[in-house]
């Protein structure tokens, strides 16, 4: 009864399934369309976009050379550049001189040159949003020199593949104050939505001649990429950030300013701060700071005029080093140290705010906080945050707490015999 018909039904079902599978199997007689062997594809690790000479853009690709099994080749990547009207065109043009089809799925970084960024990159950004092969987790970077040159110089010393190099160096925002978060998705939102401005990591090449001498102490982050007083290692350096407003680069922030912006934006990272010791000339106290709770940002929209913005940033710090002999790690001294630190940070913040308002770009994304004050989208659009920002009254104050003092609590004074 029931068993028999179910038996028949099962048989018929299996038959139907088999027929279905057979039909499926006959379809790809023309070949399986998306079937690609991994050794028929060339993987592009980084893309550089410059102004072109013979065409609109000059696109450079850093293509990984997979090492053959059992031994190393000489180089693990090569760079080709071509003058093309657009990025997808470059993918096609490259097939004429690269033996394998190019693929952007594993691209780690896309670098725009400064000269191109100062004109307009919004077009390319919108293209990248739509283009399936390009991922929102790629890093977006802007370089002072030509992007092609940067790609050529990016030969990693610690890694085998440049892809890993790009991934690691752009994730330096976790433990460095000089590098902002560089994800394409974030940059895209900052650039194209109201209430923020794009903050994009800046790349430079190692400077060939040393800069002007400065024998006294100065803060470590005052430079911009390409001006770091350093020698050795990969020629590419990431330092500071480019500010993008309405799809165009309007200026740069140096390392310290980038650090302040990151703290206000609640990007949790750790950084060292070198505070000049007020008691001893020429000595510094070194602390390592990180954010201890999310910053509190209050935006007071005063009618339709410029807003008043108060931001409180909470830091906790460990005393990492001390050059002088004052007992800063003593509990009585610690509040003073905290105050000094807060003052120092507040001063840095003032400088940064001034710079941001000068550039007219809300790199702090206060606009996004302000958005919460509006009830409807139209009100928000009508307020025109980008125009109101340069006139806003902004005050950022820091609150620092010292937590740990490292391995020694007191330093024995150096006795003069």
């Amino acid at each position, binding site marked *: 009864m029931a068993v028999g018909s179910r038996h028949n039904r099962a048989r018929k079902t299996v038959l*139907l399934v088999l027929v279905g599978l057979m039909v499926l199997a006959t379809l790809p007689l023309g070949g399986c369309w998306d079937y690609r062997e991994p050794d028929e594809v060339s993987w592009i690790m980084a893309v550089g976009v410059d102004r072109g000479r013979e065409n609109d853009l000059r696109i450079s690709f850093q293509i990984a050379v997979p090492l053959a099994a059992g031994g190393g080749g000489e180089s693990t990547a090569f760079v080709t550049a071509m003058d093309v009207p657009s990025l997808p065109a470059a993918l096609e043009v490259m097939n004429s001189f690269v033996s394998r089809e190019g693929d952007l799925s594993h691209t780690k970084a896309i670098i725009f040159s400064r000269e191109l960024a100062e004109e307009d990159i919004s077009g390319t950004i919108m293209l990248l949003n739509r283009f399936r092969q390009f991922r929102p987790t790629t890093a977006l970077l802007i370089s002072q020199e030509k992007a092609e040159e940067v790609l050529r110089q990016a030969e990693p010393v610690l890694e085998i593949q440049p892809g890993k190099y790009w991934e690691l160096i752009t994730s330096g925002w976790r433990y460095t104050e000089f590098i902002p978060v560089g994800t394409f998705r974030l940059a895209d939102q900052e650039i194209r939505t109201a209430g923020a401005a794009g903050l994009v990591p800046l790349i430079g090449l190692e400077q060939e001649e040393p800069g002007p001498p400065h024998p006294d102490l100065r803060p470590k982050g005052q430079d911009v990429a390409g001006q770091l007083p350093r020698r050795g290692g990969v020629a590419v350096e990431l330092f500071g950030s480019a500010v993008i407003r309405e799809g165009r680069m309007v200026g740069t922030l140096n390392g310290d300013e980038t650090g302040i912006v990151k703290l206000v934006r609640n990007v949790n990272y750790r950084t060292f701060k070198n505070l000049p010791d007020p008691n001893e000339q020429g000595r510094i106290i070194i602390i390592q700071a990180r954010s201890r709770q999310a910053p509190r940002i209050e935006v007071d929209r005063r009618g339709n005029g410029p807003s008043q913005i108060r931001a409180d940033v909470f830091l906790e710090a460990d005393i990492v080093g001390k050059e002088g002999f004052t007992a800063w790690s003593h509990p009585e001294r610690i509040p003073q140290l905290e105050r000094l630190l807060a003052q120092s940070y507040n001063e840095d913040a003032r400088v940064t705010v001034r710079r941001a308002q000068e550039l007219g770009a809300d790199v702090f994304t206060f606009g996004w906080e302000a958005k919460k004050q509006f009830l409807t989208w139209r009100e928000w659009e009508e307020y025109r945050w980008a125009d109101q920002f340069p006139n806003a009254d902004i005050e950022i104050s820091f609150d620092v707490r010292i937590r740990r003092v490292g391995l020694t609590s007191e330093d024995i004074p150096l006795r003069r015999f």
Partner: protein
Amino acid sequence: MSESPKIGLREAVGLLTIFLVAKAFIPYLAFIFDWGLSGTWLIVLAHLPLGVVGVLVLVWLLNRHPGKTIVEIGEELVGPIPNIFLALMLLIFLIGLVALELRQFGEFLLTAFLPNTPLSVVLLAFMAAMLAVAYMGIDTLARVAWLFFLPFLFGVFVLLALTANLWESHGLYPLLGPGPWGLVKGVGSTLGVGSDIILLAIIAPFLASGVMRTVGLATVLISGLTVFSIILVTSMVYPFPVAHELVLPIFEVSRAINLGRFLVRLETIFLPLWMFAGLISMTAGLYGAAAVTARILKMPYYRPFLFPISVIVIAVSFLFPNIISAVQISFNLLITWSVVPVGLVVGALLAAEIWRSRKNQQKGGPKSGDGPRSGAARGGLRTKPSGKGT
């Protein structure tokens, strides 16, 4: 039916929930951002109580006629001729639903994973699997849905949770988006997200007695919360103006996952989640269309209709020349206007049921039924909100 399948409570909830939630994975739901701007999540949240009301109404109607599907209830209440119209509306809705979902799932695969494969191959592959399983019966499908249900919920919430480090709460503001009246308009224009619940009325005879209300409520609550979470997280990961441009919102959300160097490019892991949900959802729709056809024609078997309906479905899927027209028409037809056929069907049957039960009451009571009592009752009964099928 030739033999009578039985669907348990959990299986029914699994089947219906996946049927309702699968639409969050395909492009057309993203157009809801056009109505709600940054307050879209409020619109979706508002659908929840409306859905509860709607499903309770539907369940009340179904419980008055145990063991019958909506086609048979219609026949009993409004007579065979009007019932044919009602059932045809339902049939067209279901076929349109399956066809449009099929096209969009196919486009999803093509855009996201298989760019060079022809659409027909993908659609035929979907259809072959759907036919095979629909042929095996609704109870088989319901059990497969239950098997998949808990991993499905888990997968969706893992997907959403993995993006936690990217959430920007400002994406939910300005709260009221287009303003309160805009939100109400948005809610009204998107009631169709819940019209799929009519499938409950088609599998009603196979459920055990007394569980209908639990099934309905559980379905609406779970699917409502799931869709709400998806929209909420999408709004937070891609705040408003950006979300509105996305063709495949859930795909983009999964592409954004970035937890360190290793946990990137994870969207391929979630492909089975979406495709399984799509397969189950569309097979349920296919079965529903075949079942309605069989019952209109008063045949005990639905299986002969599966193949013809699948041919019609594929033909309709291919009607649109490009994805954008498909998505736009899907949104208009399925989310904005599908409330009309479903609402008409349920509303008409509801009205007929109330009228009939009142007639029965009147027969029992005094003949002069025009006193204040019945007048008040009539007035009270007449105040039903329009657009029942939520």
